[in-house]
């Protein structure tokens, strides 16, 4: 019974790592896109990201299924059930990060005025890199069973929240210097939505860190200090 259970858990972790790598690939592609500053996003990049997104969705369903099967067949307990449950929560968050990544591409293609984007790009890029780092470290915390990385992720959320607040102020002050018009308004609104999505990516990284703490320590620290 334990051999089959261990094999099942091992398979789940392998597929989890595949899904996590796909999500990280999406974030790396977005980082390049932001770094280049070019809008709209080139077609080949969009197609690559769409393909990755389909893969992420498929893996989420597959891992879901495997987790449920493992619980039914092997009745895992103690650290095994905590790991499975944490994994179950984490893949939901990874799938949402994947969705937000696709949203960001679509937002970029809706920006009508390059000038506005250029003025805010530095802050957008910095905020994105911060969120992306949080996702990477939170995933690593689960895979490597590293408590410190999970704590770092959870505590770094305030940094990204602060960037979001500063971004709003910057958007308002930038608006005053740019000529009003429909395209201008659409661009500002789109950028604000984009920044909110980046902030949500950071929130999901926090959820991953909290799930890792549950796996490692059996403590549910959601809504509490770690």
């Amino acid at each position, binding site marked *: *019974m*334990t051999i089959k*259970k261990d094999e099942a858990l091992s398979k789940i972790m392998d597929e989890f790592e595949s899904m996590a790598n796909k999500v990280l690939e999406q974030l790396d592609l977005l980082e390049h896109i932001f770094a280049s500053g070019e809008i709209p996003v080139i077609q080949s990049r969009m197609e690559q990201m769409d393909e990755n997104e389909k893969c992420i969705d498929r893996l989420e369903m597959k891992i879901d299924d495997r987790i449920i099967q493992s619980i039914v067949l092997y*009745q*895992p*307990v*103690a*650290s*095994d*059930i*905590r790991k499975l449950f944490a994994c179950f929560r984490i893949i939901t968050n990874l799938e949402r990060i994947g969705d937000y990544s696709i949203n960001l591409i679509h937002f970029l293609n809706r920006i009508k005025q390059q000038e506005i984007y250029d003025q805010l790009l530095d802050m957008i890029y910095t905020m994105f890199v911060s969120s992306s780092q949080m996702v990477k470290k939170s995933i690593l915390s689960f895979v490597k069973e590293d408590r410190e990385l999970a704590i770092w992720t959870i505590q770094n959320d305030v940094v990204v929240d602060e960037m979001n607040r500063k971004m709003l102020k910057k958007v308002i002050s930038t608006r005053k210097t740019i000529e009003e018009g429909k395209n201008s308004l659409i661009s500002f609104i789109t950028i604000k939505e984009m920044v909110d999505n980046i902030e949500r990516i950071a929130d999901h990284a926090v959820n991953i860190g909290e799930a890792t703490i549950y796996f490692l*320590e*059996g403590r549910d620290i959601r809504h509490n200090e770690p």
Partner: protein
Amino acid sequence: MNENILQITDPVLSLHDLTVAYDTNKAVKNVSVGFRKNSVTAIMGPSGCGKSTLLRAINRMHELYENITTTGQIILNGTDITQMPTIQVRRRMGMVFQRPNPFPTMSIYDNVIAGYKLNGIRLKKGEKDDIVEKSLTDVTLWDEVKDSLFKRGTFLSGGQQQRLCIARALAFSPEIILLDEPTSALDPIATSKIEDLLVHLKENYTIILVTHNMAQAARISDYSLFMYLGDLVEYDKTKKMFTNPRDRRTEEYLTGKFG
């Protein structure tokens, strides 16, 4: 104080430094633990860890053997039962064993009240009838056997026989019911019925059972006690122990690293 042992306030049964030795070999070592009233406690551990030895020590069964020594205290509702006549102990603690063992020459009726007969306690017919009906009702066997009370107990199925044995234990209205792997010889449906019965019985009795079946312990017990090589390693609420055990040995046992 071992921080891995949950402290129970006002336990109905408590063991203090209980040690059982077969000649010089200690099979149970300095076990101190309290059991909460009206709960189900599962004693778990790998083969040879001392689970059944502990259970039999609580019921003072080892006194039948010269080479087994038991030291320590067993306090039941404030009374040290190690100083009590064993007959009195057995009235306050009923025991059920792995293989159903109704007395083969006795009817179902006589099996239930066998304890009274064997102890020379005379009862009126009405009193006997009441005890038999209540005990068999408590184990949800009454409806199945009420029309064949005077058939031999051995005519029943394995699961029914085990329920009869539990009824026999309940006939004295004990405070504690001790069960040593009560379902390991039964089929899954009979096992399920016994498990449901134990969950129902805890409303009126305190139940301590030894089990090799971790899933069973998880299903029906409120508290779990893990033993290893004669030591009490961990004792806690079942849901806590099964999700986040404190001791590495408990973790390894529950996750199948050894067993």
